[in-house]
């Protein structure tokens, strides 16, 4: 088992946002966390990445294990460089004052002696739109292009586990489907994916398994196709 979260409690200051959630992710899976606004989806991902407070929650109970070892004492940058797990955050958070290429180079920061140029070309093959804008300041990119850059940048860390927070947000439908097709392809090449989505239908269509979060608790879980067929979930999260 690659990632095991057991009875995780997390809080922003004194306000508890996760009230003891448990889930696991196997190598090579696509797992989705779905739920309404404020259910604790983003909080879960930030806790997994061990991002520092106050923007991110502090873990107040439970455990997160990666390959059987607790990562609670690890810093975020070590999780990225050591465990090869990273996050594409909500709102993308690209470095707008850097060019597209610089954003990609920066993500390879910890691997100075490798052939970064070839890897960047690989990203450009995946997202040809980025190649056209390679030398442009990245804040001039459209929302969809920024999302491509955010995913491409995450892949430049050579991650084997990729967390994505609302990758469909603000994207035109066609670009959104493209993005999920790309994720599916990356998964077929061995990438483990945990994706948080408000667009539950889309997420469950690509995922192997899903968990439904509601106000800091997991209220349902199972294979994605089962969740898609569950009447209560259909009614609440899939628009009937």
């Amino acid at each position, binding site marked *: 088992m690659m990632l095991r979260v057991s009875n995780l409690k997390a809080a922003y200051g004194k306000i508890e946002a996760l009230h003891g959630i448990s889930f696991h992710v196997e190598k090579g899976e696509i797992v989705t966390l779905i739920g309404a606004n404020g259910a604790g989806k983003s909080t879960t991902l930030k806790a997994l990445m061990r991002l520092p407070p106050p923007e991110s929650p502090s873990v107040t109970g439970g455990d997160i294990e990666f390959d059987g070892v607790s990562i609670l004492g690890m810093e975020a940058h070590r999780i990225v460089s050591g465990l090869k797990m990273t996050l594409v955050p909500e709102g993308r*958070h690209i470095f707008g004052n*850097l060019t597209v290429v610089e954003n990609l180079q920066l993500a390879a*920061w910890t691997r100075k002696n490798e052939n970064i140029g070839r890897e960047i070309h690989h990203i450009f093959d995946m997202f040809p739109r980025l190649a056209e804008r390679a030398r442009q300041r990245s804040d001039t990119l459209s929302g969809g292009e920024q999302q491509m850059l955010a995913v491409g940048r995450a892949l430049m860390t050579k991650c084997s586990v990729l967390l994505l927070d609302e990758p469909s947000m603000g994207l035109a439908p066609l670009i959104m489907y493209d993005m999920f097709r790309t994720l599916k392809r990356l998964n077929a090449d061995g990438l483990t994916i945990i994706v948080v989505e408000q667009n539950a239908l889309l997420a469950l269509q690509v995922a192997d398994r899903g968990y439904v979060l509601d106000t800091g608790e997991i209220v349902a879980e199972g294979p994605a196709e089962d969740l898609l067929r569950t009447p209560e979930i259909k009614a609440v999260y899939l628009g009937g």
Partner: protein
Amino acid sequence: MEIFLQQCVNALQWGSFYALIALGYTLVYGVLRLINFAHGDIFMVGAYLAFYISTAFLAPEGLFGFSRGLTLALTIPLTMIFTSLVGVTLERIAYRPLMRKGAHRLYVVITALMCGLVLENGNLALLGASRKTLPALLDKSVYDVGGIAVTNLKLWVIFAAVLVFFALHFVVTKTRMGMAMRAVSWNKFALPLMGIPLDSVIVFTFVLGSGIAGLGGMLFAMSYPVLEPYMGAMTGWKAFIAAVVGGIGDIRGAFVGGFLLAFVEVMVAAFLPSTFRDLFAFSILLLILWQRPTGIFGRPLISKI
């Protein structure tokens, strides 16, 4: 005309001091969005460190009895290293814990102000009110360029400021660490997600800023050899204002702002009663900010959601 050119040389020298301090303000602001009000006093610390290091080395009183040239060559890097240690210490014990706890930026700025006062008054308490005089480390020579007197020291000061500017520009635009610094200035949240330790980038920024201020303090002490604990206060404030006028967060802005302020100051003092100096200088800067609130090179932050 000769008076004007003579004053230009003086302005270039003063501008060099302002620029060397303003660069540190702008670097730390760029990376942390923090106005490090202790920075002027870091400049003072640099001057004092230069005094102690050089008197320790220099013959005949110094422990080592080195020649002036050797003393100068050793004092420059050592002053920069030790000053940057002081800057990093402030970050480590004062700013970082506060920011970790999620304190509002205002409290960190107030803390920086207090750190500056602690440095000033700590110096006063520790060393007393007696003024130190930096020994001469350079054989003074005066060149006559078309009727204008230029000392070798002035040329070195201006050369050092220009060199620091280009070196810093290179670091920020061409190196990995510089790229990380630029990235942090835009978005602090995502940096760890690239596997980059944010704290290392912050420490590196303080090392650069404080080291440059240390060099500035040393050059200042060589030009005006009397040291006192409050020497960094007013100069530091003015350098900060220069950084803001240039566009804080932009290293070109710090450089241009520093020289601009010095030009206004020196020219007002040269051709008007010297009591008008600061009034004119600051009024002109106010006008510039009124026209361009983000400074000469500054651009308003826009982020795309």
